[in-house]
C-alpha cells in the first residue's frame, strides 16, 4: 500500500526532524524510535500483497499453491530482527543518557562539545 | 727542451723589464698631466722611478703577520702573471710571453689572483680602513666585471675563439678590422669597465684618499710599498695591453704598443678627472645599468 509507505516515510522524516532539531537527548532518542517505527512500517509494507493473508498455515489449507495466498514472510522476519536490534540500541542510548546526565547534569546535546575539530 | 725553456724565460724577463719601465714612465706622465689640468706644477716625470727605488731600497723591520708579508708578493705575482699570460706584441717572439699556456679566460681569472692576495695581506694588517676598502673594491669589481665579461663573450662570438693571439690576428689588415669599429658596443662596454678596473675617478672610492688614506695598502710601507708600486705599473699596463689586443687591433711593434696603450689610458684619465666620485652602491648600480645593457646588446648583435 502506497499510503502505508508514505506514512512510514513521514515517520522517518519526523524522527529525523526530532533528531536534528531537538536539543534534549531524550527527545533525540524518541526521534530514533519514531524512525524505527517508520522503517518497520516501510519494510512490512513492502512484503504486503493486497488481499493476501498472513503466512501461517491453518488446518485445511492446501499445501502447494500457498504462495498465491500468503504475503511475503521474509520482510516480517527481517522486521522482527530489526525491532529487537532497535530495542537494544534504544536501551543502550538511554543508559548513555542516564550516565551522561550523571556526569554533566544536563540533557542538552549542545553542551556536549568538549571534543571538536 | 731546456734551451727552449730558458729562451722563453729570458724573453719573458725582457718583456717584463720593458713594460715595467714604460709603465712607470706612463704613471709619471699621467701624474704630470693631471697636475697640469688641476693647475699645479706636478711631480717630475721620473718621480715614480725615484719612489720605487727609494721604497725598494728601504729595509723593513716590522710586519703584521705572514699574510701581511705575503700580500704584496701575491699582488705583484698577480700583476706579472697577468701580463705574462697576454701576448703583448703580435708576431713578436720576445713579447709573446707565456700566452701559450692559456686563453682569455685565464687572463680574466688571473686578474683576481693579485686582488685576492692584496686583500688578504691588507686584511691581516688589522686596520679597519683596509678592510673597508677591500670590501668596496671587491664589490665594485664584481660589478664592472659584468659588462667586461659580456664584451668578451661578444668577442668570442665574433671571432669564434678565446685565444688572445687569435683575436689579435683576426683584427689585422687595416684599422677598420679593429674591434672598436667592428663591434663598437662591446668596446664601449669594456672601456667603461676599464674605468672601474683602473679605480680612477669616478670609481676611486676604494682608495678614497680623504678618509681611507690609500685604500687597502694603508698599512704597507717601504719594501712592501715598493712592490705594490711596481705592480701598479705592471698590472696597469697589463690591462691596457689586453684592451689594446682585444679592441684596438693589438700591436705589431713596441711603438704602436706605446701609442695605443697611452691613448687608452688617457681616455680613462680624462673621463676620470671630469666626473665626481661614485659611492660604491652607486657604481654597482651604474655598472649593472647602461654598460651591462650595452654588453648584452653587443652579445645579441653578434649572435644575430
Amino acid at each position, binding site marked *: 500500500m502506497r499510503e502505508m509507505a508514505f506514512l512510514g516515510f513521514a515517520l522517518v522524516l519526523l524522527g529525523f*526532524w526530532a533528531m*536534528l532539531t531537538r536539543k534534549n537527548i531524550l527527545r533525540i532518542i524518541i526521534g530514533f524510535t519514531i524512525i524505527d517505527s517508520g522503517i518497520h512500517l516501510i519494510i512490512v509494507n513492502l512484503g504486503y500483497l493486497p488481499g493476501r493473508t498472513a503466512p501461517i498455515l491453518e488446518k485445511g489449507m492446501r499445501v502447494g499453491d500457498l504462495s498465491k495466498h500468503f504475503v511475503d*514472510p521474509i520482510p516480517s522476519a527481517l522486521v522482527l530482527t530489526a525491532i529487537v536490534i532497535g530495542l537494544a540500541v534504544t536501551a543502550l542510548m538511554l543508559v548513555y543518557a542516564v550516565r551522561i546526565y550523571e556526569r554533566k547534569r544536563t540533557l542538552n546535546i549542545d553542551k556536549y562539545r568538549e571534543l571538536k575539530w | 727542451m731546456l734551451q727552449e725553456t730558458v729562451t722563453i724565460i729570458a724573453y719573458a724577463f725582457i718583456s717584463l723589464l720593458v713594460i715595467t719601465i714604460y709603465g712607470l714612465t706612463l704613471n709619471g706622465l699621467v701624474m704630470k698631466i693631471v697636475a697640469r689640468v688641476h693647475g699645479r706644477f706636478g711631480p717630475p716625470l721620473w718621480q715614480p722611478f725615484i719612489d720605487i727605488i727609494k721604497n725598494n731600497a728601504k729595509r723593513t723591520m716590522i710586519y703584521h703577520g705572514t699574510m701581511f708579508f705575503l700580500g704584496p708578493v701575491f699582488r705583484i705575482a698577480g700583476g706579472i702573471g697577468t701580463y705574462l699570460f697576454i701576448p703583448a706584441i703580435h708576431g713578436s717572439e720576445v713579447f709573446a710571453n707565456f700566452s701559450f699556456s692559456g686563453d682569455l679566460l685565464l687572463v680574466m681569472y688571473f686578474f683576481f689572483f693579485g686582488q685576492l692576495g692584496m686583500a688578504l695581506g691588507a686584511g691581516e694588517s688589522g686596520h679597519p680602513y683596509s678592510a673597508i676598502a677591500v670590501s668596496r673594491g671587491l664589490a665594485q669589481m664584481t660589478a664592472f666585471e659584468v659588462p667586461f665579461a659580456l664584451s668578451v663573450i661578444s668577442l668570442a662570438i665574433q671571432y669564434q675563439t678565446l685565444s688572445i693571439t687569435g683575436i689579435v690576428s683576426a683584427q689585422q689588415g687595416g684599422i677598420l678590422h679593429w674591434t672598436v669599429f667592428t663591434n663598437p658596443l662591446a668596446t664601449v662596454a669594456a672601456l667603461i669597465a676599464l674605468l672601474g678596473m683602473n679605480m680612477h675617478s669616478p670609481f676611486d672610492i676604494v682608495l678614497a684618499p680623504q678618509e681611507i688614506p690609500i685604500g687597502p695598502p694603508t698599512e704597507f710601507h717601504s719594501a712592501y710599498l715598493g712592490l705594490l708600486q711596481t705592480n701598479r705599473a705592471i698590472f696597469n699596463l697589463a690591462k691596457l695591453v689586453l684592451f689594446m689586443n682585444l679592441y684596438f687591433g693589438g700591436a705589431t711593434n713596441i711603438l704602436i704598443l706605446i701609442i695605443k696603450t697611452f691613448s687608452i689610458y688617457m681616455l680613462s684619465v680624462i673621463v676620470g678627472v671630469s666626473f665626481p666620485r661614485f659611492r660604491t652602491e652607486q657604481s654597482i648600480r651604474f655598472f649593472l645599468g647602461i654598460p651591462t645593457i650595452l654588453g648584452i646588446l653587443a652579445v645579441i648583435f653578434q649572435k644575430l
Partner: protein
Amino acid sequence: MAKYFVIIILLILLFLIFWNLQKNTAPRNRLDLLSSRYIDQGPREVGSANLVTAVVVAYRGFDTLGEVIVLFLAATGVGFLMQKRQKAYPKSNPASEILRTGSDVLLPVIILTGTYIFLHGHLTPGGGFQGGVVIASGFLLQFLARPESRIKVRKLHFIESISGFFYVLSGLAGLILAGGFLDSRFLPLGKWGELISAGAIPLIYSFIGLKVGSELVGILNNLKGD
C-alpha cells in the same frame, strides 16, 4: 535560524528522495522465487505452520543467532555501563497495595502466557522473542509493585547463560546431526500442526524465549537501580 532552514531544506530533499524511491517501486502482485519457495516448501521442509517462524528460526536462523547476541550485548552493555554508577539514589515511593497484590497474582499467569507464546511459535504468531518479552513484563510488574525488591541476579544470569548455551548447542546439534549449523531438523519433524513438531523449533524458541526474557529482566533490573 539558518540551521533550521538548512535542516528543512535537507529534509525536503530527503523527502523527495523517498518520494522518488516509493514512486518508482512497482507494486507487486506475486511473490518472488525465494519467498514462494519458503511458502511452498517451508511446511514440508521445516514443519512449521508459521512461515515467519520458519524463516526466522530455520532458514535465516543465523540472523536470529545474531539477534540473540545483539540482545545479549544490550544486556551486557547496560550492565557494563551501570556497573560504574555512583552513589545510591533516593528511594522511590512504594507502590499501592492493589498493585502489589495484583502483580503477585498476575506474575505466574504472565509467565505462563509467555511460555505459551514461545512454545507455539511454530504454530501461531509469536515466538521466542515475543514470549520472552511477555515474561519480562511480568517481572516488570513486580518491579513496579515492589521497587525495593531485589531479584536474584545470579540466578537470572544463570538462566540466561544456560539457555544461550543450549541454544548454540542445539545449533551445533543441527551441524552434527542434520544439514548444518542451526538446522532445526535434527529432531524429527513430527506431525504437522502439533505442539511437538517442526523439528527443534519449539526447543530453540524456548531457549530463545528464556534467554530473551532473562536478558530483558536484567536490563530492566539494571535500569531500575538500587
